Each structure stands twice: as structure tokens, then as C-alpha cells.
């Protein structure tokens, strides 16, 4: 297929997937909408859809529709942790390691960063960096548990990391309640972060007036680029991918399979942990998470949508953040139950991920391109295009005769 046709296909496919999903969503909203008459329900549905589609970026009121930078900033802010967990899952899944530890990882990273931010005074700038690195490093080290168990004892990394999430969560909860609790406060939280550790907000840019959006988004963008190079332009990323495709091949080729598998999970842990630190320092005054934040699960969705390619992680993260924001808007302003929102998200995801969706249309484009190529070659060869035949014409004739009679 030509590049152009490839692009057209991707666009058509994406648009159609969203459209179908929206139609399904609309139907569901309509069924569950308040209102007695058909008309009332219809207008309620229309209102909900408007919130879902344009609500994330625009304020909708009687005067009309107005772009709001704050909402865009909110979406970007929501992308910070999920970009990191998305990247984390990409690296681990690319090596065919179904490590689900990004969820606990981001919480652990956030907590370890928080401790450094509270108890280790350092100069401004350096402090934040140290927090993030410690958050990443601690999580990376903890990921050695599933990684080494897998490599040495062939323990399923999936089961192990899944359990690990809860172990991490309960240990952190325990520590928050005891050693590190700020007893002067009514709720369970740690002492406030030192000011030197905070990641400043991106309020300088005039359209972003949200205080939630920190410089973390810039770090995330840089990390995406770095990971893109790592996975597709470095020998380490290359080995991770080859191991993911065929481990026996990698081993036979002389790669250090065990080491690379450990590396992928430690790096995945580092990314999740660092993401946790960045999220914490850019957004909160103190550590107060008392449950798993859910970013790790979102990261899995993102990695799958992105096909384990870091370069597509921001797109997938944006898509999910936009959808999330739209659903929030819908819940707030249009009275749609949150359960329904989960269904809508699921439906959209389903169509996006369905590989065979529209494959017939794709095949027709492919065939068209191939035929054009063949025709072009024929024209080049001088119009004739009949390939030379030699020898044994007698027997060939007899075969042809047979064929004719059959027809």
C-alpha cells in the first residue's frame, strides 16, 4: 500500500471506530436518560453527548460554546502519570513480560519520592530531581522480585507482580498510619513536602491557567522521546523486542536473555516509580494516597492501544484522558450514571483495539495498489508482458484441450 492510502485507511478506521462507539454510547445514554417523553430523553441524550465530545475543551452554556484553556490543561495534567505507566508497561510487555506492577509501582514511587521530599532537605531543583530518582530507583529495585523469580525459578511474573501491588499498597498504608503519619491532621497523610522539592506549575503559559499542570508534562514528553529511541534505535531496546518475539531465537543469537528480561522489568519499574514521584511533587502538598491510584491499569490500556510503541503512548494517553474528562463532564453536567461511563469507555476501546475491524476495506486498498504496481511494471516491460515459455508444447496443448472441454 502506498503511504497515502495507509494514512487514509488509519484515519477512516479511527473515525469510524469512534463513531460506532459513540452511537452505542448514545443508545445506552438514551435508554437510561431521565425524562418521561421521547423528546425529553432525546434532548437529555444530546446534552450528555455534547458534554462528552466538546465538554473536555469547551464551556457550554446559554451564551454558546467557549474554549477553555484550563480544561485542556487538566487533560494534560491527567496525562502525566498515565504516560509514565504507559511507557513502563510498553517496555515490559515488549519483552513479553506480563508484569502488572506499574500500578503498585507508581504508588511506591510516589511514596518514596514523598519521603525524600519531606525528610531530606536539599537545594531547590536538585531536591526534586533526587526525589524522582529515588522514587524510580526504589521501584526499579522492587521489580527485581518478579523479574528474578521469573528468570531464576520461572515463577509467573504476572501473578507475582499482581500480588506485589497489594503488598506495596498495604505496606505504604501501614507506614502512613504509623511512622510517617502527620498526627496533627484529621486525615491520614504524611507531613507536607518541603518547598524546595516541588515541581513548579506551568502557569507561565497564558492559556494554561490550571494549577494542576506542572512541568511534569515536559519531563513526560522528553521521556517519551528518550524511550522511543531506546526501544527502536538502541541495542537494548532491540534485544527487548527480539526476546518478546522469540525468546529461543534471542538466546540462540547470543543475547543475554535473563539479563535483558530483568532489565526490562527494572526499567519498567523505574519509569512507573519516577512517574509517581513527578505526579506527587507536581500536584500535591503531601502524600495522601490510601489506595492504588489506578494509573497502572490505565497504563496497560495505553500500552495495548499504542502497540507497545512508546511514540504512540502520548496519543493513547491523550485519548483516554480526553475520554475520562468527557465522562466527568457528562457525569457532572448531564446526570449520566458513572457505571454507564465505564461501559462507554469499554465500547470505544473495543472498537479501537479490534484488529480485524475494516480489514476487508484494507485488503481492497492493498489489492488496488498491487494491481497498479503490476500494471506499471507491465507498461515498463513494453506492454506485452507475456513471459517466455519453452519446450514440451505438445503435452501442454493436450492439457489445454482438456481444460477447454471442461468449461
Amino acid at each position, binding site marked *: 500500500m502506498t503511504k497515502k492510502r495507509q494514512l487514509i485507511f488509519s484515519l477512516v478506521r479511527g473515525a469510524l471506530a469512534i463513531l460506532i462507539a459513540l452511537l452505542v454510547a448514545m443508545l445506552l445514554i438514551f435508554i437510561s436518560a431521565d425524562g418521561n417523553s421521547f423528546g425529553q430523553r432525546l434532548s437529555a441524550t444530546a446534552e450528555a453527548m455534547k458534554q462528552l465530545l466538546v465538554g473536555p475543551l469547551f464551556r457550554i452554556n446559554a451564551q454558546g460554546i467557549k474554549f477553555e484553556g484550563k480544561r485542556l490543561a487538566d487533560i494534560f495534567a491527567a496525562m502525566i502519570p498515565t504516560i509514565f505507566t504507559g511507557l513502563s508497561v510498553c517496555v515490559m510487555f515488549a519483552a513479553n513480560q506480563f508484569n502488572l506492577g506499574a500500578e503498585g509501582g507508581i504508588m511506591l514511587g510516589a511514596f518514596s519520592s514523598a519521603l525524600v521530599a519531606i525528610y531530606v532537605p536539599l537545594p531547590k531543583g536538585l531536591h526534586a530531581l533526587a526525589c524522582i530518582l529515588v522514587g524510580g530507583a526504589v521501584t526499579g529495585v522492587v521489580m527485581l522480585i518478579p523479574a528474578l523469580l521469573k528468570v531464576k525459578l520461572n515463577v509467573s511474573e504476572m501473578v507475582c507482580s499482581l500480588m506485589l501491588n497489594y503488598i506495596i499498597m498495604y505496606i505504604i498504608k501501614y507506614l502512613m498510619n504509623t511512622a510517617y503519619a502527620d498526627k496533627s491532621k484529621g486525615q491520614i497523610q504524611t507531613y507536607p513536602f518541603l518547598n524546595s522539592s516541588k515541581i513548579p506549575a506551568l502557569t507561565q503559559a497564558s492559556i494554561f491557567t490550571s494549577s494542576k499542570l506542572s512541568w511534569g508534562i515536559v519531563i513526560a514528553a522528553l521521556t517519551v522521546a528518550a524511550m522511543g529511541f531506546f526501544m527502536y534505535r538502541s541495542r537494548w531496546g532491540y534485544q527487548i*523486542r527480539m526476546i518478546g518475539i522469540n525468546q529461543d531465537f534471542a538466546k540462540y543469537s547470543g543475547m543475554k536473555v535473563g539479563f535483558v528480561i530483568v532489565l526490562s522489568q527494572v526499567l519498567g519499574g523505574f519509569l512507573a516509580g519516577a512517574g509517581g514521584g513527578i505526579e506527587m511533587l507536581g500536584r500535591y502538598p503531601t502524600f495522601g494516597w490510601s489506595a492504588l491510584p489506578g494509573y497502572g491499569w490505565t497504563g496497560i490500556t495505553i500500552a495495548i492501544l499504542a502497540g507497545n510503541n512508546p511514540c504512540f503512548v502520548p496519543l493513547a494517553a491523550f485519548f483516554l484522558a480526553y475520554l475520562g474528562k468527557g465522562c466527568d463532564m457528562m457525569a457532572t453536567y448531564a446526570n449520566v450514571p458513572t457505571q454507564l461511563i465505564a461501559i462507554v469507555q469499554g465500547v470505544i476501546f473495543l472498537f479501537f483495539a479490534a484488529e480485524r475491524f475494516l480489514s476487508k476495506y484494507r485488503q481492497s486498498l492493498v489489492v488496488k495498489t498491487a494491481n497498479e504496481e503490476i500494471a506499471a511494471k507491465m507498461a515498463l516491460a513494453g506492454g506485452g508482458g507475456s513471459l517466455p*515459455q519453452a*519446450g514440451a508444447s505438445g*503435452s501442454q496443448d493436450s*492439457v489445454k484441450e*482438456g*481444460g477447454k472441454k471442461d468449461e
Partner: protein
Amino acid sequence: MGDEANREEYIVQMKKIDKVYSNGVAANQGVDFNLKKGEIHALMGENGAGKSTLMKMLFGMEQPTSGEIVINGESTVLSSPSVAIAKGIGMVHQHFMLVPSLSVAENVVLGMVPKKGLFIDKEKAVEITRQNAEKYNLHVEPEMRVADIPVGMKQKVEILKALVRGARILILDEPTAVLTAQETEELFRELTALKKEGYTVVFISHKLNEIKEITDRITIMRNGRSMGVYETKDVSKEDISRLMVGRDVILNVQKDAAKPTDVVLKVRNLEYVNEWNKKMLDKVSFDVRKGEILGIAGVEGNGQKELIDMLFNLNVPDAGEATVNGKSVIGKPQAKIREMGVSLVPEDRMLYGIAAQASIEENVISDRCAKKELNKGPLFHMGAIHKLSEQLVKDYTVLCKSPAQQVGMLSGGNIQKVVVAREFSNDPSLILADQPTRGIDVGATEFIRKKLVELSRSGIAVLLVSADLAEVMELSDSLIVMHNGRIVAYFQDTGTLSDEEMGEYMLGLKEQTPEEIRRVCHD
């Protein structure tokens, strides 16, 4: 020929078949193909000509882009293999479709499993397999795990699988690529018997002798088009290769006498007893020297696979030692073994040889991705990598759109070329070549054999294993014969050997004295 009524009976007609794959490769263009009841029909053509593609469509694995398939006079859509099987079509694929972790018997009855209550009746499965193996004279070990059996046996399991399912039209995609001459003979006897019973066989092979021996008609393909149908007896081998390749092919590799120098590979007293208590290696000792090709002849399953496995640490022997340039390779990680300059063309390319979903480029750098020439600081030197892969694709005539194409989408022979290109080009001091020309067409076989001789003459030690006796005899400077895990003969010079004599050694009817055999150790 005289029987008019039968002559018109086409049981399969494929008319004007076009096939364009999802990546835009037009693998078949307007191909006409038909089968008469009770014939053995050869399908021939170079690597990538479109043979497997055409047959996959007849077996319902791929759908034609356009064209019609008529079976028994009825226009049919073969939407899946199960539809084809129901129509009495069976296919043995070029690449094995077996479940490695299951036993031979379980593989044979897969999908039609005999049950005992809720459970698989393993005994029954073994029984069925044994009976059919006997009936069709295809010797297999029903209870062994498929992962542990040699390729030749895997091939027979595949054929059995198709027969057990009641196929009356049998498609065999390169069934003999890994069979020895004797096994091929046996298979041919079987096919001839099946033919007499009215079975129809499509036979794909790159070996002209076999085609001449067993087939009735030949369809020749080139570049995705049919070059016509011929009666086998009317065309000579030269005609066939000219039709396929478009030029004359000489398969006789010229080589000057070897001048072997220092010992590179030294194997001493290797012993290995497999899970079923069969002694696969029995005090195997030999040397391979710089500048020589040492061939291993023998019927498949006499320890060749195990020997190669030990030398590349894909398995560990019970006793014995093997060194390359003085350093032991037993139990060493493959990374270390490769560092010593050992290359391996594995017998089963799909298992170890490639990462199917990666590009050709990514596959040819797998053994050298950390090398200085291909890296620039922490990143790959993409320019150097592109150059390397383009060069290899060109040198080894890999038929592809570009080196960025997925290896899994190449034809079988072209996949083999990718593996060979990588293993021959990494500056080795020892090449372990296990079936190096498996599934490769005549033209490319000629090239690879020449290349192997050229490499050995440049001072590389080569250990060659091949099921193709002619290949071993022709390429090897000297030769050992393995039988029952032992070396039973050593010939310093292959020039004077006759096939008959070799046959006697290979079947264990004759054996040299220990003194004669010990000459292969050059201490």
C-alpha cells in the same frame, strides 16, 4: 493415457487465481492449476514463486483475491481448513504445524481426540497412531514428545496427521526437504501405493530427481504466474530448471583440494542418553580442522541432532568434552559460544533461526547487535545497519520488497536464506551447518554450496550435516558416518566413495575398525 474418460476427470480446478497478501505482495497472478484423480502432480518453482500460497488457498488457509476453485465439478469456497478437510483435502505444510509440548500420538489425533469419559484416551491415541504408522509404513515413536524428535520424524508425523484425517487429496509442501534418501524412497513407495488406491497427491520439491521419479505431471511457476503444465516424461531436468529459473543451472560445485591446518573443533567421548533411555551419543570423538568441510552422513535420528545441540549448548551431554580453539563449549551460554566464533544454521529455521514478526534487517543483526560497527554511542548506527542488510539481501538473493519486510511473510526458502546469510557473514571460525540448503531452490542452492566451499577455503572450519546424501558427498572434504549414536566410519577423501558403500555404513551393515575411525582425531 488411453483412458479417455479418466483423462477428463479433474477433481480440482483452480481457475485464474489471484492472491495479493495484506502487505501488497502479489503472490499469485492469474494462475490456472488442476489435478486429475489419481495422479501425483508436481508443483515447481523458485523460492517465492508462489507455490505454498497457491496450495494454502486450496487448503482454505488463505483466501484467493479473485478466481475460482472447482472441486469435483462443483464451484467451492474453501473458507477454512476444516472445510477443506471435509472435502477430503489434506495438507502437509512446509513449516511444521505440530504442538511441541504434546506427544506424537496426541499431535496425530489432535482435533479428533479419542475420549475416555472426560479425559483424553492416551492409549487409544497411541494405538491409532501405531496402527496408521504401520499401515502407511511411516515409522514414528508415538509416545515421544514432539519437541524431542528429529525433523525427519516430525515430517512423518505431519504426513500421518493428514492421512489419519482421511485426506483423498494430499498436498505435500516440501515433504522431503529433511528426509534422507532411504526415507524418501520409503515415502515414494507409500505415495505410489496411495496413488494406486485413487489418492491424488500434490508434491512440492526443489529436487529434480525426485520430481522425475515420482510425478505424472508438473505445473511450473515463476514470479507468481503459471509457466504451464507438462507431462513429466516429456520434459528433461534441464527443461524444468530452465523454465523455473530462466537459465541453466549447474549443481556441480567445483572445489580444489582442502589444505586443512590446525584443529578448530575437538570433540572427545561425548555421551548422551535421552529421556527414553536411548543412547543417542556413544563416545563420539572427532576433529574439524581449519580449511576443511567435515560432513556427517547418516540416517536421521542417529545422533546428529543431539551432537549439534551439544556443540551449541542447546542440550548438555552426560559426559565428554568439546572445545573450539582449545576452549570448552559444553554448557557455555550461547553468547560465549558465539564469541568464540561459532555459527549455527539450525535444522529448524522457524524455531531458533528467526523472529518471525521482526523485519529482515532486525533478523540479520541479532548475533552482532552489540558490535562496534553497528553502534554509535548508546544508539544504533542505522546507516551501517541498512547497508549491511541491503548487502546481505542482495548477496543471498532474498526475494523481498525491502529489508524492512517482516521475515515471517517471506517464502520458506527465502527465510532459510536470511538465516544462512546471517550465519555465514559474522566472520566465524567454525560453522555448524545443519541442513543449510533445506527448502532452497536449485539456483540458490548452487550459490550457498559455493559459498560454503569458499568460506572453508578461506580458513573456516565447517561441520556439515545434511539429509541430502548427495550434498554431503559433494561438499565434504572428508566424512564421518553416524549410526546408533556412534561414528562407524571415517573417510578422509570423499572422491572415491560410492553411494552403495555409504548406504551399508549408514544402515549399520558395515563398520570400520576403531583404528580407522580414530584417524578423524588429529592429535
